[in-house]
């Protein structure tokens, strides 16, 4: 049963009242109603719906903090969680740097929830799957993927007077189209409402790549000029965020940004911002402490910009709070959740036309970090890897392994598309263009 933002706020306030024995208290309510239809081999094989509401209480005693959560919402269970949070705080050790819970700040609530996402029921999802599958079936291919919809009501209240709530919705999915022998293609989508998407066209996008990927060939390891489609670019941007953009990572000297504010480390054409109020953003406009998410320029025309902070790291580093708090307790540190890379002015065809000999990558798979300081990543390409020969998309390639420093790579960007795509989810999305990058290290290939 879904919960409104106002109901979530009331619940958060009730939890705070129950934690009155603490010096300070904060409650985060996360209520989610979600459904996901999964298909493979041209048929629906998994189909799930769930609802859950979790109340997480942060109790502060002096400079000691405890957190307890429950998904039982009766008074007895909430009181037990409140008492548990207080007991944890009392048993904890003091953090002399803890600044106290943040005071309320004005938050701009944006109406981003869409009724079409709420009413995107199992029959509608099945029909969407049917349209996607048909695009593969008519080409002699098989389709796999997901169609999902969700509604989230998030509210935060605190004894300092924070009292915010917002509802967002999301609809999204993925399509993998597979043919014989071994050609695969991919498409994905994410937005606030299923009405934004033409399912047959998304199915056709994946199927067309699969047809073109048939009978992939070899490519020797080496450095190649690459054109990375947006989904591949999102992996790189997300690892920059995961390892580098947080004030905590910078303070701990783990980040590529540490000690380099203002220094040019990437191509002048690269600007990366976090902006929850951008017209194209789809997520919450406040963080998980109820603080307004503020526009942060993380990479400014290739130069290292400002880090993402939350109330703790803002106070500790004497910086403004940019609104990057994750749910407490947060040992990870602040994180940007509404990332975007600035667009360029090229089309994808123009990027490909600019390459004499290179590789086109639809997306990466199982990307992981080898070293956070250089953001050295390794991963595989999949679902549409092609040679680029004389400015044209050429023969399909078997999946390639890359091992590449992301900062180095983004210093060698020579082209950016004007078109961008959202990748991720409504709770944390990344809006990215396609990139042309020189000397990208391909270090292996699937056998």
């Amino acid at each position, binding site marked *: 049963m879904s919960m409104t933002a106002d109901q979530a706020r009331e619940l958060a306030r009730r939890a705070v009242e129950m934690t009155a024995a603490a010096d300070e208290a904060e409650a985060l309510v996360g209520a989610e109603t979600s459904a996901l239809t999964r298909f*493979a081999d041209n048929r629906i094989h998994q189909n*799930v719906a*769930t609802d859950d509401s979790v109340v997480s209480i942060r109790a502060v005693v002096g400079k000691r903090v405890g957190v307890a959560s429950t998904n039982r919402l009766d008074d007895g269970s909430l009181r037990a969680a409140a008492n548990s949070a207080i007991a944890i705080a009392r048993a904890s*050790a003091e953090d002399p740097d803890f600044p106290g819970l943040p005071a309320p700040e004005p938050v701009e609530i944006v109406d981003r929830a869409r009724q079409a996402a709420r009413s995107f029921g199992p029959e509608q999802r099945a029909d969407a799957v049917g349209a996607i599958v048909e695009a593969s079936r008519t080409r002699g291919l098989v389709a796999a993927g*997901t169609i999902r919809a969700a509604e989230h009501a998030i509210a935060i209240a605190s004894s300092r007077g924070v009292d915010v709530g917002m509802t967002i919705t999301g609809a999204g999915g993925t399509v993998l189209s597979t043919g014989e022998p071994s050609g695969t293609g991919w498409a994905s989508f994410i937005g606030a409402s299923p009405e934004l998407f033409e399912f047959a066209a998304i199915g056709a996008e994946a199927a067309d790549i699969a047809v073109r990927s048939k009978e992939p060939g070899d490519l020797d390891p080496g450095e190649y000029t690459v054109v990375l489609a947006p989904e591949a670019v999102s992996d790189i941007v997300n690892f920059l965020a995961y390892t580098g953009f947080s004030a905590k990572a910078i303070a701990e000297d783990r980040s590529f940004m540490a000690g380099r504010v203002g220094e040019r480390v990437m191509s002048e054409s690269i600007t990366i911002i976090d902006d929850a109020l951008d017209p194209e953003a789809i997520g919450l406009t406040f963080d998980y402490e109820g603080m307004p998410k503020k526009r942060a320029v993380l990479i400014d025309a290739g130069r290292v910009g400002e880090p993402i902070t939350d109330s703790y790291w803002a106070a500790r580093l004497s910086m403004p709070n940019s609104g990057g708090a994750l749910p407490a307790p947060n040992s990870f540190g602040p994180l940007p959740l509404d990332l975007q890379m600035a667009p360029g002015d090229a089309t994808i065809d123009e990027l490909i036309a600019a390459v004499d000999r290179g590789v086109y990558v639809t997306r990466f798979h199982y990307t992981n970090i080898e070293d956070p*300081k250089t953001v050295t990543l*390794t991963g*595989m390409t999949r679902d549409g890897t092609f040679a680029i020969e004389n400015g044209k998309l050429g023969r399909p390639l078997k999946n390639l*392994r890359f091992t590449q420093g992301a900062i180095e790579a983004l210093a060698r960007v020579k082209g950016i598309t004007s078109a961008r795509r959202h990748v991720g989810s409504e709770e944390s999305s990344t809006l990215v263009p396609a990139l042309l990058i020189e000397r990208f290290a391909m*270090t292996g290939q699937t056998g």
Partner: protein
Amino acid sequence: MRDVIEAALEAARTAGVSYADARVVVALTEEIAVGYGVVEAIESRASFGLGVRVVADGAWGFAATREVSEATAAETARQAVAIARASARVAGIPVALSELEPVVGTWSGGCEIDPFTVALEDKLAVALSADEAMRAVEGVALTKAHIGANRYRKWLGLLDGSFVEQSWTESGAGIAAYAIGEGEVLTRSYPNSHGGGWRQAGWAYVTGLDLVGNATRVAEEAVALMSAAPCPSTTTDLIIGGSQVGLQVHESIGHPLELDRVLGDEAAFAGTSWVALGDLDELRYGSEHVNVTADATIPESLGSFGYDDEGVPAQRDFLIREGLLTGFLSSRESATAIGRTSNGAMRADGWNRIPLIRMTTVSLEPGTWTFDDLIADTDDGLYIETNNSWSIDDKRLNFQFGCEIGWEIKGGKLGRMIRRPNYTGITPQFWNSCDAVCSADHWEVWGLANCGKGEPMQVAHVAHGAAPTRFRGVQVGVGR
């Protein structure tokens, strides 16, 4: 809980399903995290709910709710049936399940000292003391210590009258020290990276790890890595430590032998498998030294249980015997594709998720070598320990792993330290290059509490028994 589960099953039966299961789960979690002298997190989480899975019109449906009562159970079952009937709009062959005799039983994991009854102050003191000991080593830039515990109670009922109740406790802990050099972060962890060590056990497991006693060594090794030699870029003989062998088994044997991956059910997310159904009893997966079991009965292992989430009793099964592929991890549905019954690998990570085929304790069985003899038998190579990074392609063929630390082997002796070694390979070639596995004296079950799979994502707790193992002619130092 029996009344709630029977209410769900009765509502499903009335709605005309051909199969139904209903599962109630109570989960309690406690986590303590310390970072460089600061308590970064102490948290208690409680979660409770019901999930109902049905087959109607030959297709699957699942619904879950946190509101657990007989009324909501019936309503949730009817929702699951409606979802199943919608699934049938894009259906394939009707769902068929392998045979299973109805079961009634209980199971509980061992736990000698309940971690939830140990004073929080005492647990925190262990983490803070270990952290302090690491910080005392000059050159250490960052430290982390964590201690955690999970408790689960689960009730499962099936339409055929099966009813099982299970409960178990998990404990885990670990420390890590970081040294930061020019352009790189150097890490040393104990007893393992990515969450430390985990077992189905109580507080005695954590105290037995002796985090404080190992802290200085861990920190000193992290600092020593700053001046260690870089990993050479070459092809060489590689001896891999037990925990990393466990992860190698996980990624390049466990996942590709999940029968749902082989059948394509995970194709769009984690991928498929390089192994085909027809490879069963035919494929030479590895050398004759490669014997791999899936065992859900090992005491204290994170991959153990009494019954899986389809009610199939826990089993021990050979997946690979003397290098030959002999089995898959299966479910009641997927097992029909190979003409067998389920070997009991279906688990969900909570009340609001469907069971998927998950690893149990998937192990490389011990060989006969002592570690010292294995080093002495290696003329030129590397010995490496403790995972730092992992990546593998969507068919589980091309992999690349990074480790925290290594040592050169020259003339049968361990030599100078190597920092951040990595290696790459292709699964069948790699496992066929295995020519020595250390003995049971060196074999240990490594708990792994972060195995991701499925959409919506689920995180399974699995385990791998492994000992130091040698592979010939491996490419190392990729991208260096």
